[in-house]
C-alpha cells in the first residue's frame, strides 16, 4: 500500500538532493484562507514548509490546525513542537492527532521563554526539554507505544528534526549538542539564522570531524533583513539571533527605500557562501512577514525546483 502522506522531505534528504524549506508566517486570522494564501506564495519554491509553534511565546494559529490546512492544499508541512506550552501528556496526544491529519515531519525545539512574548505572566511548562521531546516522540515512532507503555494500533510514520544554533555560546559544544539530538532521534536539522559564514564553517568542520565526514543533513537557516532598523530589532528581541555589525552597516549604507533590496542581496550572498559547503543539505528560509522575498532569493541563487534538481 502506498502511503499518500509519506514524507517527501525525508526522501529528498535521504537521497542527498539539495533541499529548500521555508517558514510561513502564521497570520493573526481566524480564517483558513489567510494562511493558505501565504503558503501558496512559498510552495512553488520549497520542498516543505515550517509551521512554528507560537514562536516568540506569542499565541499564533495552532500548529496542528495550520499543518492540516497546508495538507488540504497539497503542501507538505514541517510542524514545530516546542516544550514551552505542553507537558508530556499533551505532547503525545498532539503528535498522534497530527499524524492522523497527515503530518509526517515533526521538528522539536526547546521554545522561547514566556518572558520573550506578549504574555510574560504565563506559566511556562518545560516538562520536557528538546532532547527528551525527541526521545518521547521517537519512542512513539519506534515502539508504537506511549511513554507509559500503552499501545497504539500501529507505529506512526514520522520524520523527526531538531534545531541547531551554531551562532551563540557555547560555540565548541554546538556540534556535540547536534549529535546528542541525533542520538535522541532527530534525522535532520535546521539552523538558526546564519549571518556569519565563518562561524558556520568552523561548526561544520567540527561536525564533519566528529562524524567521519558523514553528518546528518543540516539545512542552513537564512533570511532577508527588511531594513537596518528591523535587523537591530531582531538582534535585540529574538533570542538566539546573532547579526554581526558589518551586515547591518552594509544595509544601512542605502537610503531606507532601498534597504529591502540590500537585505535580499545580503541574504543571497549568505546562501551563495554556504550552499556548496560539504555537509550542507539545503537551506531553510525564514522571511518573517515577507513571503514574496523567497522567490527572489531562490531565483537569484539558482535554487529553483528545476535548478536544484539538476
Amino acid at each position, binding site marked *: 500500500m502506498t502511503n499518500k502522506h509519506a514524507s517527501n522531505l525525508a526522501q529528498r534528504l535521504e537521497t542527498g538532493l539539495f533541499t529548500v524549506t521555508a517558514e510561513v508566517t502564521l497570520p493573526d486570522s481566524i480564517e483558513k484562507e489567510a494562511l493558505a494564501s501565504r503558503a501558496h506564495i512559498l510552495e512553488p519554491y520549497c520542498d516543505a514548509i515550517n509551521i512554528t509553534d507560537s514562536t516568540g511565546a506569542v499565541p499564533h494559529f495552532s500548529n496542528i490546525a495550520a499543518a492540516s490546512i497546508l495538507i488540504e492544499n497539497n503542501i507538505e508541512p514541517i510542524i514545530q513542537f516546542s*516544550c514551552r506550552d505542553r507537558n*508530556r501528556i499533551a505532547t503525545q496526544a498532539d503528535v498522534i492527532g497530527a499524524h492522523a491529519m497527515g503530518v509526517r515531519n515533526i521538528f522539536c*525545539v*526547546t*521554545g*522561547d*521563554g514566556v*518572558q*520573550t512574548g506578549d504574555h510574560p505572566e504565563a506559566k*511556562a511548562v*518545560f*516538562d*520536557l*526539554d*528538546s*532532547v*527528551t521531546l525527541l*526521545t*518521547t516522540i521517537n519512542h512513539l515512532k519506534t515502539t508504537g507505544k506511549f*511513554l507509559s507503555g500503552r499501545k497504539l494500533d500501529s507505529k506512526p510514520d514520522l520524520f523527526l528534526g531538531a*534545531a*541547531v*544554533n551554531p551562532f*551563540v*555560546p*557555547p560555540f*565548541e*559544544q554546538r556540534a*556535540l*549538542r547536534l*549529535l*546528542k539530538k541525533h*542520538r*535522541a532521534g532527530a534525522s535532520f536539522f535546521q539552523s*538558526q539564522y546564519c549571518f556569519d559564514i565563518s562561524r558556520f564553517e568552523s561548526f561544520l568542520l567540527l561536525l564533519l570531524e566528529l562524524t567521519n565526514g558523514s553528518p546528518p543533513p543540516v539545512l542552513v537557516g537564512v533570511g532577508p533583513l527588511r531594513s537596518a532598523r528591523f535587523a537591530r530589532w531582531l538582534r535585540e528581541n529574538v*533570542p*538566539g539571533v*546573532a547579526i554581526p555589525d558589518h551586515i547591518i552597516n552594509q544595509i544601512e549604507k542605502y537610503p531606507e527605500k532601498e534597504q529591502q533590496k540590500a537585505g535580499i542581496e545580503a541574504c543571497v550572498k549568505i546562501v551563495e557562501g554556504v550552499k556548496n559547503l560539504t555537509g550542507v543539505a539545503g537551506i531553510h528560509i525564514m522571511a518573517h512577514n515577507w513571503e514574496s522575498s523567497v522567490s527572489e532569493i531562490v531565483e537569484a541563487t539558482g535554487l529553483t525546483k528545476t535548478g536544484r534538481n539538476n
Partner: protein
Amino acid sequence: MNKVRLLEFTYLFCLKILSRLVPVLSEKRPFIGFMVASEKAFKKPLFGCQMCGQCILHYTGMVCPMGCPKNLRNGPCGGVRGDGNCEIKPNMKCTWVRAWDNSTQMMVFTESIEEIQTELDHRLSGTSAWINELGGGNDE
C-alpha cells in the same frame, strides 16, 4: 585542586560511603529524614539545589541544571546571548555555558555531559536523590 575537581572528588567520596549505607538503611524513616535534611542543607547553598530528587550534578560539570530557567537537563537552548548569558535572565550566566566549561575541568566525568538524560519524574520532587539513586539495591 580547583573548585570543580574538589566538588567532583567530594561526590566520589560520598558515593563510596553512601553506596554501602543507603541500600541497608533506605527504608529507615530517621535515615530518610537525615538524608533529605542534609541534601537540603548542603546542596541548596552550594548548587542552588531545588530538590528535584534526581541529581545529575556529576554529568553537568557540578552545575545544577535545574538552575536553568527552562529546567533544561540535556544542554543549552538556542537562545543564549552573545556574552554567554541567559535568554530569560540577562544578568545570569547561562547554566549550560558554566556546565560545559566546568565539565572540561573534571577528572572522571568530562564526557558524561554528552549522555542523554531522561525526562524528570516529578513525583520525586522533595525526596532524597541519593536514596533514589542507590536505594534499590543498586550497589555499584
